[in-house]
């Protein structure tokens, strides 16, 4: 089994189901907003880099979006 | 990449004065002064006391404001008491040298004037200061003419170190120095510098400053900026009243103050009002812009009403009676018992003074008068001893 920690929650994948890239992960999760930014193991990744960012077993991923605030 | 604006992006005082034409266009400003009406003066008085804008000050120094001196005086008195309480700082000058390389036509120490020049050694200067300390002073002003060869940075730092133990505030009023030199002096214990532009009008400046380093108007103009950069706590400004039209000079002086206040928010600006007085070798007919007592009062009040926190300094150039009346109108710092010749506290008649003193009362007498007028003579304002090089350590 492979796993990724996404926003603090561990998600498991069968080896052949594991999202290859960040773009695929977002697709799988159904994450919509265009103003999303990710951190992979603490490193910031911009939206336009998602399809070039390969994922590895055990990485910690933060998905962050803009929302309403004061 | 968006670079945030820094202090150096903002216009220099030179370009501010030039763009406002305050350094050369007398006709323009005389006309604007004439056009001020009584209603303009009332509007200026109704605006927030202690706040500055050029239009407000223009109204307050105008001929039209002469009929409003009493309300100006009341406001000024109230504002000063609110900000400074009833405390009056007392200080005294120590003249270090009368040797000078400049030729300034208005000054008794002009190098063309023939009289025996005197210099005090550090020992002798310290001895003069000792006399002042014994009279109760804790606030002292070291004064010198342009005698760079003798009154060096080393001299001043040595003297400052000796004085620091006795005096809580040591200021200097000497020839102009560089920012690095001011920094060294600040580290040695000099807390304030006074440097008069003498006149902001370029043509007038050229006419009266014939030769020597002081003849450079622009260099002189940027002196206070160097003091601010060096961290000086007090920056003293002033014009020699009588060289040019005092109303226009006051406007330029205020622009200078405002510029410095915005840039060096940790320094306090103060204004002095040296009014031309008889001095050895200076014929009176050469000065068509001499101020009356009424003009002097109007100038002080106008500045106080525009600068709530500025120090207003009065020296012993002015006669006793006038000083006593001016005390309640916005003054915050007063010299007393001054001698304007080097060595003057031990031997008052031995050497030539820079200008004639007109209030000859002793410091004790001045303090007593202050008390009868409801003021508290303050010999020391704050204590540099709290600040000298202490490090933060856990006890």
């Amino acid at each position: 089994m492979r796993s990724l920690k996404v926003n603090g929650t561990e998600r498991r994948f069968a080896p052949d189901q594991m999202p290859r890239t960040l773009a695929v992960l977002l697709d799988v999760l159904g994450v919509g907003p265009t103003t999303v930014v990710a951190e992979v193991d603490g490193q910031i990744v911009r939206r336009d880099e998602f399809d070039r960012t390969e994922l590895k077993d055990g990485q910690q991923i933060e998905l962050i979006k803009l929302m309403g605030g004061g | 990449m968006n670079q945030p604006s820094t202090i150096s992006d903002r216009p220099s005082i030179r370009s501010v004065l030039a763009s406002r034409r305050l350094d050369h266009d007398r006709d323009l400003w005389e006309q604007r002064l004439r056009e001020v009406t009584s209603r303009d003066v009332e509007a200026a008085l109704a605006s927030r006391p202690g706040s500055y804008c050029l239009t407000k000050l223009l109204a307050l120094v105008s001929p039209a404001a002469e009929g409003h001196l009493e309300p100006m005086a009341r406001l000024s008195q109230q504002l000063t008491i609110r900000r400074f309480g009833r405390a009056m700082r007392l200080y005294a000058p120590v003249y270090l040298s009368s040797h000078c390389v400049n030729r300034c036509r208005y000054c008794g120490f002009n190098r063309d004037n023939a009289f025996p020049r005197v210099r005090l050694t550090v020992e002798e200067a310290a001895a003069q200061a000792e006399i002042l300390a014994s009279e109760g002073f804790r606030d002292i002003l070291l004064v010198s003419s342009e005698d760079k060869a003798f009154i060096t940075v080393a001299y001043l730092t040595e003297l400052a170190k000796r004085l620091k133990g006795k005096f809580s505030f040591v200021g200097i009023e000497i020839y102009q120095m560089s920012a690095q030199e001011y920094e060294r002096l600040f580290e040695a214990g000099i807390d304030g510098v006074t440097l008069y532009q003498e006149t902001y009008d370029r043509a007038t400046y050229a006419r009266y400053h014939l030769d020597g380093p002081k003849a450079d108007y622009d260099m002189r103009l940027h002196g206070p900026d160097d003091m601010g950069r060096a961290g000086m706590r007090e920056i003293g400004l002033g014009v020699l009243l009588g060289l040019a039209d005092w109303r226009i000079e006051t406007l330029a002086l205020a622009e200078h103050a405002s510029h410095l206040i915005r840039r060096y928010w940790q320094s306090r600006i103060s204004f002095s009002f040296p009014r031309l007085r008889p001095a050895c070798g200076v014929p009176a007919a050469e000065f068509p812009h001499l101020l009356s007592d009424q003009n002097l009062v109007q100038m002080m009040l106008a500045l106080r009403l525009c600068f709530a926190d500025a120090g207003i300094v009065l020296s012993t150039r002015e006669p006793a009676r006038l000083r006593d009346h001016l005390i309640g109108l916005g003054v915050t710092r007063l010299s007393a018992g001054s001698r304007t010749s080097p060595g003057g506290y031990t031997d008052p008649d031995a050497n030539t003074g820079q200008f004639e003193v007109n209030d000859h009362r002793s410091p004790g007498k001045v303090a007593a008068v202050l008390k009868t007028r409801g003021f508290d003579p303050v010999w020391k304002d704050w204590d540099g001893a709290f600040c000298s090089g202490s490090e933060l350590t856990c006890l």
Partner: protein
Amino acid sequence: MDKLTIAGRVFASRLLVGTGKFASPQVMAAALEASGAEIVTVALRRVDIDDPADDTLREIDRERFLLLPNTSGARSAEEAVRLSRLARAATGINWVKLEVTPDPYYLLPCPVETLKAAEVLVKEGFVVLPYINADPILAKRLEDVGTATVMPLGSPIGSNQGLKTRASLEIIVEQSNIPVVVDAGLGLPSHAAEAMEIGADAVLINTAIATAGDPIEMATAFRLAVEAGRKAYEAGPRAPGRHAEASSPLTGFLREQ
């Protein structure tokens, strides 16, 4: 009325609006429209994996409004810097409203962490708009560091108490060389007008609009109040009258010559 300039960009509106606490994205969008604002603040949060498509900001026209991300949630300088970098990566713009609020009750900003974060962010090329208590010295320190504005609070976030810090705000307005945006605690249009009358360059309103009975009408009211306050300030208001005490003349001596 003269225009507002922040970091070299010119704005016609002096009302900044926050996008939080609205009942729906549609109401939010309509209120923003009615407010005439050109700068709107937004926050950063983790995507909710259970509702991942939620995009409250899809209604905001990014051509029309400058999005100003805030670092709300940060309790330290490190967190604020991290959020700022994330925001820049998310939006492509380098403006950030720096908010470091360790105190969860009043959401008051920490001056020490704010100054630390501001120094780092300015060096990294951000346009920093720091949210602070109405502390005039802190405002000068931030200006020295190179922030684009200061944003002192009127009263705690969401309290709707108005200009409790008025006396300090007046000092900040007097001493500041950079725009002063009064932020937090303004509950009524009259509070906003008051802030503008004392010389603030702009105000930021969120709770008072978002939680009003009719947010769109309230947004309009705030727009009008900010305009009225600014016009009054530019017209040169008179200080409240003071009556001088009757006593002997102070300048009579001049006539005794």
